[in-house]
């Protein structure tokens, strides 16, 4: 059984339907990319999985638990944590405090200390700036801090919402290669991106979402080679 199994969910904002019969799954060890253009419903999908909103229909199963109607704090506890769209750091708290907020639901202080060091190994920049307030970080550093914060929850599934948004090509490279590193260390990643090429290059599998519907799926390579994807998302 897959780690995360989303089955035919619908989601609404008032009367606007944002997701229609959306199904996807993430297996242990995978990077799964969810690509689509602006407004397609990618963020909504992540919000629904993390319990910030609930689907009108369908089920979400994670690691053997039905989390369709579970609240966000319980879901973090079960092992899903995300770096949300736009980073959403705690601007007036230090980098260190932001990281500690990621570990909020954990009760193993000794291990938390070890994990902070891990995060600092992954993002040496954060170590330099541990006592700086997060609002004063540069865009790339903020993204690193957001990813580090999510990692501090020690998630069984890491979800990243547009981590490359607004970053220079070089920083994008860094971020995507770190996503690869995180994954090789054993954490499955659900990666939401508009930057389809980069995402599909690093991902094992991918889904293409259009106006709340999954229109295509396959391995990263298959999608990169698919004509529809090339036309719509790779500008070819």
């Amino acid at each position: 059984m897959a780690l995360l199994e989303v089955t035919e969910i619908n989601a609404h904002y008032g009367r606007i339907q944002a997701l229609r019969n959306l199904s996807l799954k993430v297996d242990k060890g995978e990077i799964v990319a969810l690509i689509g253009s602006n407004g397609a419903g990618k963020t909504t999908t992540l919000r629904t999985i993390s319990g910030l909103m609930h689907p009108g229909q369908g089920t979400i199963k994670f690691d053997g638990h039905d989390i369709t109607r579970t609240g966000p704090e319980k879901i973090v506890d079960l092992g899903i944590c995300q770096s949300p769209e736009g980073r959403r750091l705690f601007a007036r708290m230090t980098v260190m405090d932001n990281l500690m907020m990621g570990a909020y639901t954990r009760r193993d202080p000794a291990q938390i200390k070890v994990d902070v060091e891990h995060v600092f190994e992954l993002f040496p920049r954060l170590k330099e700036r541990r006592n700086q307030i997060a609002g004063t970080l540069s865009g790339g550093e903020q993204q690193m801090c957001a990813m580090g914060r999510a990692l501090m929850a020690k998630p069984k599934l890491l979800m990243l919402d547009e981590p490359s948004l607004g970053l220079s090509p070089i920083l994008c490279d860094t971020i995507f290669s770190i996503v690869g590193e995180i994954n090789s260390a054993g954490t499955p990643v659900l990666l939401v991106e508009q930057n389809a090429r980069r995402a599909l290059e690093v991902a094992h599998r991918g889904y293409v979402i259009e106006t709340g519907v999954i229109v295509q799926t396959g391995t990263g390579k298959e999608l990169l080679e698919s004509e529809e994807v090339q036309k719509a998302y790779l500008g070819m």
Partner: protein
Amino acid sequence: MSVPATAQKRGPMWNRLRLRERIRDRDTAIFGILFITAVVWPMATIYATDSTFLIAQAGHAGTYVLLAIGLNVVVGFAGLLDLGYAAFFAIGAYTYALFASNQLASSPLHHEFHMPFWLMLFVGMVVAAVCGAILGFPTLRLRGDYLAIVTLGFGEIVPQLFYNFDQWTGGINAIGNIDQPSLPYWITGPWAEAGITTIKLVPNFSFAYDPVAFYVLIVILVILAVILVRNLHSSRLGRAWMAIREDEVAAAAMGINTVTTKLLAFAIGASFSGFAGAYYGASFGIVSPDSFLFTVSITVLVMIVLGGMGNITGVIVGALAIYFVLNNLLPALPAQVESLADSVGLGSLNVQNGDWPGLAGETQRIAFLLYGLILVVMMLLRPQGLVPSRVREQELKHDAVLEEETAVEQAHA
């Protein structure tokens, strides 16, 4: 040039004291100064003025310090704009007043209660905390301006209730003759009684409207509150409040239960106010609904914003500063202006003349205009507050750097 001998000697001695290292940061230094001032205040003022007036005033100011510390939990830590904070103050005061006076004898209950002050201090706190949670409940989904309006409404309703349920509360007639706290026998003991002069441990220390006793009490309460809030600030809960203040959605995404965390902010903030209310009721011996109006809420809010929101030291300094302006500076101003006019030869201005009320009268008229001006000027000079938190300072510095950068860019463009 030769260095004076005293300075040469002084250097090493200062070094040996290592004051700089001991006073690790500015906040600790300010705490130290405040604490020492608080300790010597009664002796110093009695010596200087031969009256206990300034001690009584300091006791009253202490009430506001407590209120400011409490409101800072709600507004400064958790970022929930509460404009009705005086309501909890009223609830604390009335809780004590009702159960420690003969008021309830004339109520439909026909039975008066005289509960001990020390117990009611905590009952007042708990009742206010529960009311805080009750108010918090319907407002949890609201943010920013909406929350402010609802709390504003609550602050208007509560005094009205005390005003209108006059069968119980005496309404406009207020509740008077409130019991004075008394120390338990194991503290006063036989040795404190007047006749025995050999072992007077706490001689004549009683609360019968004795400002010194109340002053000691409020200082202890404030110190307890500071210790409590400092610990809260650095606790898990404290960090959760800050996270919610910064970004509620992200906080929820990190696994913080935003509902209980916000409720706790309201409840804990309110409990300080309840505490302060019970003290207030006892120290004045009378409570009436119009002591808890909107102006009280706003004054406390001004205190924390001006002092440096979120920073406990700043909040205390702000409370004392505003208290001083409102209760000492502005009332003394008319007389001061008058004597100033006399001494510079403008004495004629002091005389009332037609529409002109005299300089003193005019000063009194514009007292609140001056208050407003003082606030505006202070905020312009120190937008971060008198003693801001480190974080706020860093942030402002960053903003300044950004501004400079854009200015430089524009200059080069």
